């Protein structure tokens, strides 16, 4: 499997500063995205601190597997997922401590959604209302739950998903980095399939662009950076009310080896069978 990725962050059309931050660490296949909040420029500080801390902690973990882990380790998770969850706990602590030490930073916080790919295993760690999706067989599968008040109300059956989309309370989070001394981190693992497309995005995308449109754009554009640009452009076209950040990761069949060559041949045949069927219709 070959992994290609790209990302774009944009201020949007209404905001004057970009509080989103992302990083792609290609040698590790680590992808980190954060959306900051807080007055003045503190949202930017928080999201940059979150991304920096998570990246650094994972890099350290790669060099030294015995490096200390933060937070309650969850049972049944592999090393990468544990490390990633630990990194998010550490980022929370850093932002919280910084806000405690600097009164002007009070209320500063950030979301964090991170993905780490190891072979066919995908580790996800997540806090807040940024999202991770997997496009598989043309369908967008959501890999994260929003830690927002409206999403929690939907989970409890108090309001419907449609009501949540129309709610004025969408920006109210129930979990974020920096709000409290410790934070509950969602960590999960998934198995990847060839041709899966992973995306991480801030709410500036998902509030502006519908899921079918996101899936469509990702399937139409095979270059990950251009796909991310296209999604950002769509969000801006629809109003660009918030900062928009998108990371696109594509898992492509490896180009080397007789096995992949054989499989590619088989697929070509399948494709030509499909078009033959089409000709009959026409």
């Amino acid at each position: 499997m070959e992994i290609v990725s790209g990302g774009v962050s944009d201020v949007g059309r209404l905001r004057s500063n970009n509080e989103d931050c992302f990083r792609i660490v290609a040698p590790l296949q680590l992808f980190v995205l954060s959306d900051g909040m807080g007055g003045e420029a503190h949202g930017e500080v928080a999201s940059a601190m979150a991304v920096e801390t998570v990246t650094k902690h994972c890099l350290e973990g790669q060099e030294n597997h015995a490096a200390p882990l933060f937070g309650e380790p969850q049972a049944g998770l592999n090393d990468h997922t544990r490390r990633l969850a630990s990194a998010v706990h550490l980022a929370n602590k850093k932002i919280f401590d910084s806000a405690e030490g600097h009164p002007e930073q009070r209320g500063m916080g950030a979301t964090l959604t991170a993905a780490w790919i190891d072979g066919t295993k995908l580790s996800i760690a997540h806090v807040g209302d940024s999202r991770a999706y997997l496009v598989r067989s043309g369908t967008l599968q959501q890999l994260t739950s929003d830690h927002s008040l409206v999403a929690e109300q939907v989970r409890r059956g108090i309001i419907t998903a449609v009501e949540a989309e129309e709610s004025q309370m969408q920006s109210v989070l129930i979990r974020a980095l920096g709000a409290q001394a410790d934070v509950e981190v969602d960590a999960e693992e998934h198995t990847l399939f060839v041709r899966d497309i992973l995306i991480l995005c801030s709410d500036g995308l998902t509030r502006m662009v519908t899921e079918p449109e996101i899936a469509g754009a990702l399937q139409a554009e095979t270059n990950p950076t251009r796909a991310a640009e296209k999604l950002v452009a769509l969000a801006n076209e629809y109003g660009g009310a918030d900062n928009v950040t998108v990371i696109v990761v594509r898992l492509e069949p490896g180009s080397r080896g007789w096995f992949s060559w054989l499989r590619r041949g088989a697929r070509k045949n399948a494709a030509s069978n499909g078009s033959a069927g089409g000709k009959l219709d026409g």
Partner: protein
Amino acid sequence: MAKLSLMFQDKIVKEVPVGSRPIGIGRSPDNDLPVDNLAVSNYHARVYFEGGRLVVEDLDSLNGTFVNDLRVERATLHDGDSIHIGKHRIKVDATGDAPVPWDSGRKAAAPRINETMVLDTKERREMLQQAAASGERTQFAAGRMKVPTLIVLNGRTDQKEYMLTSKLTVIGKSAMATVRLKGWFKPHMAAQINQRDDGFYIGPGDKVPTVNGSPIQGPVRLKDGDVIEVGGVRLNFIFRE
């Protein structure tokens, strides 16, 4: 467009069209279809489109919702059906097209709190309680956790039942699938189930699954008791107490 006509002693009291938003029915005046009768709960039932079909759902009302004289918690509605709530009857006119589903087309721009904010634990609890009290329809009361489960009815799989604990469950022959299909010529990745905030959605993989006999068109939310067929297996989706 589909419409609901509230009748009392064979006279039409009120008519409402059913669009893409759910129609709330109940005694409280903020319902789309208020029914002024003491036998009716404040938020008694609602009617909405799901997968192109009109559905009525009882919101744990005291005296129940009846479709063609059968008490229902949830039922698909057909043209000419009658919903009885208290002493009132609601005539269903399901002719006309289903509205555009919520997830296609452009999103409506919602007015909103612009700056993101975080609630602390106490605020969160209070706001959720308030919302629950005003909504009167909390489905998941504390201590009544229901476990979503797939039970294998027919076909060869590696287990007889599966608890859906992950955001993403794959059904297929692949060694990486959660629900592993056995036998020759089985699809590698037949279908997938995605856990969303409002429930579990089944989507196509290499195959298009059927739910209760009808092939799905795009992701479909699974309901308690639904029967899924894909790749030569039949699975029963249930919420286990």
